[in-house]
């Protein structure tokens, strides 16, 4: 109760500013990683494939570059929650761009009052698919059948775009899947990430230390602004963050009238965008070290 009176409620103007600053900083970080490390998610997932490929061949697991990429993204996720998903992953950033454009088209062109939103129940059900996708890929790799699926992969098509290579021979199935993924991202913010991403499924299974925490006692009664801003439809009033589904976008924290949502490190550093920049710089340095940066 005492805490309740200590915290001030942010005014509408302050909230608007907080949300805008957060959106801008996040977009800037995403842009930097989109240009410099567009293959980071691909390399991290290739690490998982590499482990099961070794098991399939009966050879020891060698610490190759892909497994280092996997170790990096997994360690980051264990320490900071899915910061990688929220700020670094090029495919996620691409999805944010698609969803933003989709919103503009819906509101400006089709004069809709609000951008379409998928019912929460559907989201909760569809989430399970990504675990099946991960299981499917891992089993195919372990059985040595994965090479047969070559080209049937939306990420390969995406990599041809980010590399400015534009070679699509043998990628017909991939292109169809890629278009379907774009449609999904247009309908649902981060739809691919929450419903289909195999790397996201792996992350959701990891124990996470630095996830956002909500100071429930300090909340305004009946306020659900955090929940309304969550792209993943988390039950934030319950134990929403620890189930692994949070993609670490921090939108809820930026929108909270009482600044009631914080990462553990926010207790040390008052200005909440500083830890974001520190985490981004750390990933950039370590990622460059293992060859994920395309410039050096």
């Amino acid at each position, binding site marked *: 109760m005492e805490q309740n009176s200590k915290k001030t409620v942010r005014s509408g103007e302050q909230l608007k500013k907080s949300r805008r600053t957060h959106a801008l900083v996040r977009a800037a970080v995403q842009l930097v990683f989109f240009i410099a490390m567009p293959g980071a998610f691909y390399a991290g997932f290739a690490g998982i494939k590499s*482990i099961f490929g070794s098991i399939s061949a*009966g050879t020891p*697991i060698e610490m*190759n570059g*892909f497994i280092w990429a996997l170790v990096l993204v997994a360690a980051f996720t264990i320490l900071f929650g899915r910061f990688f998903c929220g700020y670094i992953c090029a495919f996620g950033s691409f999805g944010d761009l698609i969803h933003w454009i989709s919103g503009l088209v819906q509101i400006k062109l089709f004069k809709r009052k609000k951008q379409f939103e998928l019912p929460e129940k559907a989201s909760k059900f569809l989430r399970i698919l990504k675990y099946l996708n991960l299981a499917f890929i891992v089993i195919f790799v372990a059985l040595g059948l*994965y090479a047969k699926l070559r080209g049937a992969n939306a990420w390969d098509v995406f990599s041809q775009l980010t590399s400015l290579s534009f070679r699509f021979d043998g990628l017909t199935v991939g292109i169809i899947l890629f278009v379907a993924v774009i449609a999904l991202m247009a309908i649902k913010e981060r739809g691919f990430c929450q419903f289909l991403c195999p790397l996201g499924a792996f992350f959701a299974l990891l124990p996470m230390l630095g996830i956002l925490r909500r100071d429930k006692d300090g909340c305004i009664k009946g306020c659900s602004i955090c929940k309304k801003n969550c792209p993943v439809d988390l039950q934030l009033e319950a134990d929403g963050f*620890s189930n692994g589904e949070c993609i670490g976008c921090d939108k809820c924290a930026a929108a909270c009238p009482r600044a009631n949502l914080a990462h553990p490190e926010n207790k040390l550093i008052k200005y909440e965008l500083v830890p974001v920049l520190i985490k981004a710089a750390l990933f950039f340095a370590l990622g460059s070290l293992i060859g994920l940066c395309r410039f050096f």
Partner: protein
Amino acid sequence: MKNINFIIKAISLVLTVGVLLVYSGFAAKHHSSLKAHEQAVAEIEAHNAEVLRKLNEAPAGKYKDGEYEGSARGFRSDIKVKVTVENGAVSAVEIVSADDDQAFFDRAKGVIDSIISAQSTEVDAVSGATFSSNGIINAVVEALKTAEG
């Protein structure tokens, strides 16, 4: 229990990593004895081939000795390789130039060993680095076209 979710995940992670390490240890042992055996067989076969070649004085292989360059499209741009042919066999493949992302290209270089030990360009691409792998393989194919005698 508030942190039950975290504890379960942490235990599963530790167990998974443990199982992978144990597996890797056993696989390494098995793999090294297998490798030694394969090497012994390969040495004997090479010796036999050498003896046969001397007996028949037949041409050593289908390629002329020398160094040949070839290039093919990798992930970002063309990959250029230099192939060395010694005694009619591919003895070395050197990357002359490539612009692909390092993490991927380093993995793709694995196909060079496959090409040399198989003495064939019909080898599998490295999973996760297929564009770069196929670039190297195709560049070797191009280089060997000029080496045919």
